[in-house]
């Protein structure tokens, strides 16, 4: 057990420690290795990061990787709270943050209070433990901080090292700044570079050539198809959206009255538009019946005139009866005619709902077109870059993309025009299963 590399101050046998809690145990580290202790700030998750790395934090402009000690030691997952702290330390010359449950205190302990560790302590592997410090009231587990990162793991954390922090501009040459995309700290740094450059440019300050070169390289990377995880996630989201629209339109087919189910609607290439056609058909049926009834009304009016011409002796029963009948019929006829005209006017709805539906159809088609465009562009670029293209499918995709772009120029389409729905279905099936 070697305690010589603990800081000793005020006499060769005093250790200066900072202690923190993890679960039920209290740990301590050499205080000189601690840069600072922070409250819990937002941790940005970074895809492709090593497993033990929780993410990164922004510390006054610097990007620091953060390790969750509970995860590292295999302790149970607990919710973080107000007490949670990030202890920023120098580990193998890398600046790293360690998430701990709480920080207890800074203390001095005599070297003589340190003893070798028992084999399994607090569920933590003995490789991480230097020893235990026996204080009056409690036991502190002394952590060997350097063991928290192996040499390889430290190398994976490309990012500001202790020396690099003091470096200002780089000695980089004019061309050929190659940024490696492995190492998540590097990726995040690139993103920060881009943001800085953009901020500086909009603030009108001078931007270094180095920053611009970095920016250009990154953008070139994107264009050449170096896609990041986030891009692929977005691509997946677009696919989900397109599938959702598709499924919704297909399921509209299930909303059918018995008459419509068997009807052949050859002109409606789209289920949405078939709604308008279905209402048109129904309305025309109503109008036909109404027109026939109105015709009957005319016949009734004629019959009434005939009855009027029936002559009876005045004041006879029949005369009175005739007048009664005429009066009744005229009343009913009037009511019916008005009623039929009202029904007819109510059929206005078909035009109004139809127009609204057409507007929605236009909207859906536009959105659909734009989503397909993005998906296809992404796919085509990626396939061309990978060179793994299945020519038939690739050409299909290029054709559809060309069709969509032509349609965008033409503007909103009438029914029967536009992307063939079954072609879209096929393509989405191939792309997203």
């Amino acid at each position, binding site marked *: 057990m070697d305690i010589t590399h603990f800081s000793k101050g005020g006499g060769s046998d005093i250790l200066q420690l900072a202690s923190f809690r993890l679960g039920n145990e209290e740990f301590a580290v050499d205080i000189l290795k601690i840069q600072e202790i922070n409250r819990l700030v937002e941790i940005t998750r970074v895809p492709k990061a090593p497993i033990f790395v929780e993410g990164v934090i922004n510390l006054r402009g610097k990007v620091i990787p953060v390790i969750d000690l509970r995860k590292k030691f295999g302790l149970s997952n607990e919710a973080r709270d107000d007490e949670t702290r990030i202890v920023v330390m120098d580990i193998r010359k890398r600046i790293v943050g360690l998430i701990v449950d709480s920080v207890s205190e800074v203390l001095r302990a005599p070297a003589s209070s340190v003893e070798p560790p028992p084999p399994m302590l607090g569920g933590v592997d003995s490789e991480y433990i230097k020893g235990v410090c026996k204080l009056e009231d409690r036991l502190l587990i002394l952590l060997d901080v350097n063991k928290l990162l192996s040499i390889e793991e430290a190398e994976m954390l490309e990012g500001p090292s202790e020396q690099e922090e003091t470096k200002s501009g780089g000695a980089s040459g004019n061309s050929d700044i190659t940024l490696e995309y492995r190492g998540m700290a590097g990726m995040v740094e690139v993103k920060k570079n881009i943001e800085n450059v953009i901020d500086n440019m909009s603030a009108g300050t001078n931007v270094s050539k180095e920053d611009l070169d970095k920016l250009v390289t990154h953008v070139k990377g994107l264009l050449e198809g170096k896609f990041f995880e986030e891009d692929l996630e977005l691509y997946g989201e677009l696919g989900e959206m397109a599938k959702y629209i598709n499924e919704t339109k297909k399921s509209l087919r299930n909303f059918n009255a018995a008459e419509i189910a068997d009807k052949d609607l050859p002109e409606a290439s789209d289920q949405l538009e078939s709604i308008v056609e279905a209402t*048109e058909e129904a*309305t*025309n049926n109503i*109008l036909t019946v*109404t*027109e026939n009834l*109105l015709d009957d009304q005319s016949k009734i009016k004629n019959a009434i005139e005939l009855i009027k011409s029936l002559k009876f002796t005045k004041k006879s029963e029949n005369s009175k009866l005739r007048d009664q009948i005429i009066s009744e019929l005229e009343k009913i006829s009037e009511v019916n*005619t008005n009623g039929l*005209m*009202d029904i*007819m*006017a*109510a*059929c*206005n*709805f*078909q*035009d*109004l709902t*139809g*127009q609204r539906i057409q507007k929605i159809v236009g909207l859906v088609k536009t959105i659909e077109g734009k989503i397909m465009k993005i998906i296809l562009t992404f796919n085509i670029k990626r396939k061309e870059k990978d060179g793994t293209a299945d020519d038939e499918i690739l050409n299909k995709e290029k054709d559809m993309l060309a069709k969509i772009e032509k349609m965008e120029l033409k503007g909103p389409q*009438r029914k029967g025009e536009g992307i063939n729905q079954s072609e879209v279905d096929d393509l989405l099936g191939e792309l997203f299963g």
Partner: protein
Amino acid sequence: MLDTKAKILVVDDFSTLRRIIKNILKQLGYMNIEEAEDGVQAYNKLKNGGFDFLITDRNMPNMTGLELLEKVRATDVTKELPVLMVTAEAEKENIIAAVQAGVSNYIVKPFTADVLKEKMEKIFG
């Protein structure tokens, strides 16, 4: 009021609406009615003259009702033709635009037979 022998053109891209208007006019006694689906078809029929009244929608493909109205007013044969616009658009600017283009009167959908009759009486006296 318009003579029952008058020749009337009804223009709307929804066939059900043309049918409704035709029936209302029939009830009012008008039998000489022709139809068109959009502004282009309508103008082709109108430019040869012979029509006494035009009833048109506003929102139509190929040529809107407003464009049709402007063309009608710009053509000698039809520049005095009474025009009734029947449309779903109730926005003030749209009504003003139609009036400025020379519309005789304006009905907002949905409408009843009474309203149509009333507007025709306003136009023809």
